[in-house]
């Protein structure tokens, strides 16, 4: 049965396979896809209730509100990223794959991002109008959330990999990840603020893009190491 | 010396409260930083000495009950390992 002439799986095939597997598992439970959107929707409505309905004040704070809520939504979702893989033993098998664990884990993180952060960014204009964000700032908001959510998901994945073997690790995940989210929040919300004032949002988006590239390059290394450590602790 | 009297030192023309409050908090925290490991070392030394005596006691020919308790402990700790 095990003829050795057959070509073994290439890295690309394994990468796509892992991406598809996580995507299908995520798509199979629509709750996981809807939860972040509903969370975003509900928490955004809290701000006018807390700060008062005055549209002038709300629209002035809109970029900050939208970005903080997007960050919290990403945080809430990051906890579940590797949880199911850890429980059903897929993580163990991932360590045995021929290809580096960091790359395969990156495939899972990207699939997870598509299902959560990406959708959030596309739907965010609806929430933006609720808090009175000027129309001309909407494109920058969507771009900043697209870039930002990828960065937040990658950093959140590092936290998730570190805390996956701890039983009630959710709170701990927030504690160790929020400080790392600060630059993303600053660059993202400032870009949208500049867009509302017709300032140069592009330079802030460029900084955000730089963070995304850095995270794409470095986060997988930390994720791979953290997953192996969590397995030893499990 | 910049100040000419103790009262001036305490008052520091109005800012004394903040300066001395900051230094007081810092001194207590630094003292705790230095004292905690020393106390921990002492506590652990006493534990090691106490453990030494317990071990000395268990080496001599024990009474029946003590022996059984050791046996029970050993098997219990073995089976508590769910899988090998």
């Amino acid at each position, binding site marked *: 049965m095990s003829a050795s002439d057959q070509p073994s799986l290439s890295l690309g095939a394994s990468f796509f396979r892992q991406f598809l597997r996580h995507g*299908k598992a995520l798509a199979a439970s629509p709750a996981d896809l809807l939860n972040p959107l509903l969370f975003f929707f509900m928490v955004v409505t809290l701000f006018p209730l807390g700060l008062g309905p005055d549209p002038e004040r709300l629209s002035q704070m809109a970029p900050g509100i939208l970005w903080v809520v997007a960050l919290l939504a990403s945080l809430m979702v990051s906890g579940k990223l590797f949880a199911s893989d850890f429980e059903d033993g897929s993580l163990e098998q991932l360590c045995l794959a021929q290809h580096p664990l960091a790359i395969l884990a990156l495939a899972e993180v990207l699939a997870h991002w598509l299902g959560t952060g990406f959708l959030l960014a596309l739907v965010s204009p609806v929430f933006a109008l609720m808090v009175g964000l000027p129309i001309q700032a909407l494109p920058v908001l969507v771009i900043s959330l697209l870039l930002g959510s990828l960065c937040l998901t990658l950093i959140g994945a590092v936290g998730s990999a570190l805390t996956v073997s701890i039983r009630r690790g959710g709170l701990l995940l927030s504690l160790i990840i929020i400080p790392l989210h600060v630059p993303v929040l600053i660059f993202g919300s400032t870009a949208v603020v500049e867009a509302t004032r017709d300032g140069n949002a592009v330079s802030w988006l460029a900084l955000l893009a730089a963070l995304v590239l850095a995270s794409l390059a470095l986060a997988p290394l930390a994720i791979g190491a953290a997953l192996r450590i969590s397995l030893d602790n499990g | 010396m910049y100040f000419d009297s103790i009262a001036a030192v305490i008052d520091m023309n109005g800012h004394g409260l903040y300066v001395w409050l900051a230094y007081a908090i810092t001194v207590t925290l630094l003292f705790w930083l230095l004292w905690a490991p020393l106390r921990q070392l002492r506590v652990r030394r006493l534990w090691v000495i106490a453990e030494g005596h317990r071990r000395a006691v268990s080496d001599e020919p024990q009474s029946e009950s003590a022996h059984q308790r050791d046996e029970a402990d050993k098997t219990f700790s073995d089976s508590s390992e769910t899988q090998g």
Partner: protein
Amino acid sequence: MSLLIATEVAIERGDRPLLRGVSLCVESGELWQLVGPNGVGKSSLMRALAGLARLGVEGAIRRQAAALFIGHSSALKRALTPLDNLRLHPACDMPVDDQQIARALRSVSLAGYESVPVGALSAGQQRRVALARLLITRARLWFLDEPFTALDTAGCEWLEQQITGHVASGGAVVFTSHQQSRFGARQHDLDLARYVSL
């Protein structure tokens, strides 16, 4: 050709030493069972030999061939169908088409269950889906941790055939099991009681 060479392996759990000085050389065509009382460290040693655990493991472990590990957890996504689970399995090491998977599922008598989500299957059926991986792998070195648990007699016979077939074709299998020497003379036993470190 030796597929696995382990020299002077020591296993620690937390900071409590379990085993020390374990040396093992598995040649192709050999079948090894790790034997020892409950809690001596069979599973821990198995995971170390398969390369799953690094922390608390000392000594040199060299695997000369790709390894396959099947443990207690089945590594199956409950929401996916057996077809998807086997096609997209994280440790899958060869391109597989649907016919091969269907044949494998038929071989573990799960024909017709191809598109039923794994979550809806019974524990025994899930176990068989996990074991179906043995038919679609190129790994020559198999590590099976308690593979016979939750299997009925038919399943055990099937598994015995797979193991003997794999060993006959030049592969090697290291497994743990509660039953003693299920393969009789054809298997080598590694009694871990000799390596327990106090």
